[in-house]
C-alpha cells in the first residue's frame, strides 16, 4: 500500500479549493493595467493609513485574545471545579454567546449598549444625564463585542481540558507540598496548555477576520477587513487585492506561529479523569457563588433578551422612550407571510446543510487518507485543511469572486460568481477546518482493526464507512457538523460579497432590513437565526 501515490486526488482538490483562489488574489495584486507591476504594493507600503489598518487588525486581535481568555478561563474553573446551586444550568447558559451569529450579536449590542440602547437609556435616566453616558464606537466597542462573543472558546476549551486533567496529578502535586495556587500555576494550567492555545488561535483568527463589529461600530477606527471593503467600493480593485494579501499574510503568519507554539508543547495527560467538583462547604460561599453565577448569566443573556424584545416591536414605534411602547407578533407574521422574506430563511438553511454535509465528507475523506491509509501527502493534507482558518471571510470572498468570474476550465476556473454554487462553496471552504480537525482526531482514536474486521466480513469501503466508521465517529460528526452548520447559517462576511437573488441568505436580509430601518424585522430574523444555531448546538452536544 505504501509507496503508491495515494492522496493525490484529495491534495489537488484541497489545493484547488483553499489555495488556488488565494493565489489568484496574489497574482492580481501584482498585476497592473499593463502587465506585472509592483506599483500597488509600493503604494500600500507608502501609505500610513494602510499600515494603521493592518496594525489595528493585529492589536485588536491580540487584545481580544487577552480579554476573552481573562473572562473564559476563570469562568471555566468556577463552573468545572465548584459545586453550587444551579451549576449545571448556569454552566450551559454561559456558553450561549455562541448561538449569536456575528451580525446578529452586533445588532443586539447596538440595541442594548448603543447610545440609545436600553442600558444607556437606563443609566441616562437614573443619573439625569444630558447626553448618553457612553458611546459604543471605535476600538473599545469592537473589543467589547469580541470579548463577549469569543470568551466562549476559552470557556468551552478550558472546561473540556479540565475534565480530562488527571486528578492523580493534582494529588501528586499536593502531596509534594504544593499549595493550591502553585498547583494551579505549575500543574493545572501547563496541562491545559494545548486547549488554551487552541482557544487563543480560534479567537485570534476570528478577531482578525471580524467584519461585522468594526463595520457597524468602527467609526473612524481602521481595521483591514473594513478597509478592504471600502477600497473595493471606491473602485480601486487592485489596491483591495494588495490589502487582501496583506491581511492573509498576517493571518498565515499567525497560524504558523500558533502551530509552532503548540507543537512545542503537546502534553498528553491521560489518566483516571478529573477530580469531582469541590463542594463549597460554607452556605455563605455557596450562595455567593450562585449569586455571582446568576449575575454572569444575566449579563451574558442580555443581548439575547434584547433581540427577542425588539423582535416584537413594530416599525418606528420606538423613538426616545426608555422601553418600546408597543409589542406585537407582526414581525414574525411578516417573516412567514411574505414569500420574499421566507425565501432567505430557506436559502440559508439549505445552503448551510449542503455546505456542512460536504465539509463532513471532505473531513472523512481527509481523515481516512491521513490516519487509515497513511498517505505520503498526509502532512500536506493536514495543513491544507487548516489553511481556511487563516483566511478571513472577506479575503475568501474576494478570492472566490476573483477566481470564479473567469471561464477557463483547463485552469480549474469556472464562472460561479452570480450562480447558486458560489455561496455553498464558500461556506464549505470555511467549514473544512471546523470539521476536519475533530474528524481526523476521531479517526486517530478509532481502532484500525475495526475497518479490517469489517472488510474481512465482506463489507465494502462504503458499507464500512456507513456501518462502522460513521456510527463510531457520531459524536465528533454531530458536534463539528453542528458548529459548521451554525457558522454557515449565520455567515455574513462572505455572503455579502457573493450572494445572488437566488441565494440571498438571512444575514443579507437582516442588513437589508436594517437599511430600511426595519429593526423589528431584523431582530425577528436574528431571533430565528439564534434559535436555529441553538438547535444545531443542542443536537451537536447530545450524546
Amino acid at each position, binding site marked *: *500500500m*505504501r509507496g503508491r501515490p495515494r492522496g493525490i486526488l484529495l491534495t489537488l482538490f484541497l489545493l484547488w479549493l483553499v489555495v488556488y483562489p488565494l493565489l489568484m488574489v496574489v497574482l492580481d495584486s501584482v498585476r497592473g493595467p499593463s502587465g506585472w507591476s509592483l506599483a500597488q504594493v509600493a503604494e500600500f507600503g507608502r501609505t500610513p493609513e494602510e499600515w494603521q489598518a493592518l496594525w489595528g487588525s493585529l492589536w485588536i486581535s491580540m487584545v481580544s485574545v487577552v480579554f476573552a481568555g481573562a473572562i473564559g478561563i476563570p469562568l471555566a474553573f468556577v463552573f468545572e471545579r465548584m459545586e453550587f446551586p444551579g451549576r449545571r444550568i448556569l454552566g450551559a447558559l454561559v456558553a450561549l454567546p455562541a448561538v449569536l451569529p456575528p451580525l446578529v450579536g452586533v445588532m443586539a449590542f447596538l440595541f442594548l449598549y448603543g447610545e440609545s440602547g436600553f442600558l444607556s437609556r437606563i443609566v441616562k435616566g437614573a443619573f439625569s444625564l444630558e447626553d448618553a453616558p457612553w458611546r459604543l464606537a471605535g476600538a473599545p466597542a469592537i473589543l467589547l463585542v469580541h470579548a463577549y462573543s469569543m470568551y466562549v472558546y476559552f470557556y468551552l476549551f478550558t472546561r473540556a481540558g479540565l475534565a480530562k486533567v488527571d486528578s492523580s496529578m493534582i494529588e501528586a502535586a499536593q502531596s509534594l507540598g504544593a499549595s493550591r495556587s502553585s498547583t494551579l500555576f505549575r500543574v493545572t494550567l501547563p496541562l491545559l496548555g494545548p486547549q488554551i492555545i487552541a482557544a487563543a488561535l480560534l479567537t485570534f483568527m476570528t478577531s482578525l477576520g471580524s467584519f461585522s463589529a468594526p463595520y457597524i461600530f468602527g467609526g473612524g477606527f481602521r481595521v483591514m477587513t473594513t478597509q478592504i471593503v471600502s477600497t473595493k467600493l471606491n473602485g480601486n480593485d487592485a489596491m483591495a487585492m494588495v490589502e487582501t494579501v496583506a491581511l492573509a499574510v498576517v493571518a498565515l503568519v499567525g497560524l504558523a506561529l500558533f502551530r509552532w507554539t503548540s507543537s512545542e508543547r503537546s502534553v498528553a495527560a491521560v489518566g483516571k479523569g478529573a477530580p469531582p467538583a469541590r463542594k463549597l462547604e460554607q452556605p455563605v460561599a455557596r450562595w455567593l457563588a450562585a449569586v455571582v453565577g446568576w449575575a454572569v448569566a444575566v449579563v451574558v443573556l442580555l443581548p439575547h433578551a434584547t433581540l427577542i424584545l425588539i423582535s416584537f416591536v413594530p416599525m418606528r414605534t420606538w423613538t426616545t422612550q426608555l422601553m418600546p411602547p408597543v409589542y406585537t407578533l407582526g414581525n414574525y407574521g411578516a417573516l412567514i407571510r411574505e414569500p420574499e422574506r421566507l425565501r432567505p430563511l430557506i436559502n440559508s438553511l439549505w445552503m448551510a446543510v449542503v455546505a456542512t454535509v460536504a465539509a463532513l465528507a471532505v473531513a472523512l475523506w481527509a481523515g481516512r487518507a491521513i490516519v487509515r491509509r497513511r498517505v505520503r501527502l498526509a502532512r500536506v493534507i493536514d495543513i491544507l485543511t487548516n489553511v481556511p482558518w487563516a483566511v478571513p471571510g472577506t479575503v475568501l470572498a474576494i478570492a472566490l469572486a476573483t477566481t470564479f468570474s473567469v471561464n477557463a476550465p483547463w485552469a480549474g476556473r469556472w464562472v460561479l460568481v452570480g450562480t447558486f454554487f458560489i455561496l455553498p462553496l464558500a461556506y464549505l471552504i470555511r467549514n473544512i477546518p471546523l470539521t476536519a480537525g475533530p474528524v481526523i482526531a476521531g479517526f486517530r482514536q478509532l*481502532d484500525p*482493526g*475495526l475497518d*479490517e*474486521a*469489517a*472488510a*474481512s*466480513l*465482506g*463489507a*465494502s469501503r462504503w*458499507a464500512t464507512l456507513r*456501518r*462502522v466508521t460513521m*456510527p*463510531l465517529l*457520531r459524536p465528533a460528526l454531530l458536534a463539528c457538523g453542528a458548529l459548521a452548520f451554525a457558522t454557515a447559517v449565520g455567515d455574513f462576511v462572505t455572503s455579502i460579497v457573493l450572494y445572488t437573488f437566488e441565494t440571498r441568505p438571512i444575514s443579507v436580509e437582516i442588513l437589508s432590513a436594517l437599511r430600511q430601518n426595519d429593526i423589528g424585522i431584523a431582530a425577528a430574523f436574528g431571533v430565528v437565526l439564534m434559535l436555529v444555531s441553538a438547535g444545531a448546538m443542542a443536537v451537536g452536544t447530545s450524546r
Partner: protein
Amino acid sequence: MTFLQVVNLTKRFDEQFAVRDVTLGVTRGTVLALLGPSGSGKTTTLRLLAGFERPDTGQVLVDGVDVTAETPVSRRFGMVFQHYALFPHLNVGENVGFGLSGRSPEARRARVAEVLALVDLAGFEARAVSELSGGQQQRVAVARALAPEPRVLLLDEPLSNLDPSLRERTRRELRAALDKAGVTTVFVTHEQDEAFALADRVAVLRDGRLEQEGTARELYDMPATLFVATFVGRASILRGTLIAADRARLAEGVEWPVRPSSNVRQGGPVNVVVRPEAVRFAPAGLPGVVTECRYTGARAFFQVEVAGGTVELEAPIDGARVGDPVFLTVSSAHAFPVEP
C-alpha cells in the same frame, strides 16, 4: 488435499524483508499455526493471506484458484483480530450478524444463534460488547468471523489478550469450536504451547523465512535448524565435530551418539542439540559442574556448566546438588546434529 496454498510469498516494507519466499500449504479442514518470535513475519504473512497487504511477489491460492489480486472483501476469509476489533457501537448479536448482510432477517437471526451456540454463548445476542469478559469477547470475535461461513479462518494471536489463568480453558474451547466448524484455519502465535495445543501443523518463521513446517512432534523430534530446535521446546547446544553419521565428538574428546542426519557434512563442525529429558547423570561421560537446580515437584531442572557451554537436564531431585562435579550422557533419540 491442499486447500489453501501460499507460493513464494515475498513482502518488503521500506526495503526490509518482512516475508521472504514463503511457501506453505494447508489441508482442508485442518489448523495451521504460524509460530515465531516477534518480527518473524508471521503477522505479515497472516495479513497477506487476508489481503490487507499486497505481496511484492508470490501467490495465494484457494482450492487451486489464485486470489492474490482479490480484496479482503472478495476473498471471503474470516479474521479474528488480536484485540478482537469488536464494533463497540453494536451489541453481540449485531456484531456476529455484521457479515450476514445478504440474508433475510430470519436467516440471519438463526445463523447468529447457531454460531453463538457453537462458541458456547447461546442467548448472548442482546448483550453489549463492553459487558463481556475477555474470554467471552474472544469467542464473540470467533463467532463473528465464522458466521458468514468463511472459506478460511485467520486468527491473529487469539489468546494473547487473555489472563494466563484463562488461556488453557479458552484454548480448549477454541479448539472445540474449530473442530465443530470444520473450517480451514491459520493462526498466528508466539507461544509454542499454544501452537502445539491448537494446531494440526505448525510453521516456524524467523526473519520472514519459513524455517520448518510439520506436526508438533516432527518439530520437536526432528528440528531442521538450530533456531527451530531452540524455539520449539527447551534445548541445550554443544559444539563439536561430526565424526560419523550418528556420532559427534564434543569437548575433551567425549563422544556422544546423535540421530543420523543428512543435513550435516561428516567430518565438519556440528552443533549438537539436546533436549533436557535426553540427558542423564552418569558415572562417566561429559564432565561438568552443577550451577543451578530448579525444583518442579518430584523432578528438577539442573544447569550443568560444561566445556563450551551449558547443558540443561531433567532428573530426580536427588540426582545432584549445586557445586557437584558430574558426568553427562545422552540418548541418541533426542540429540540432533545441526549445521552451525
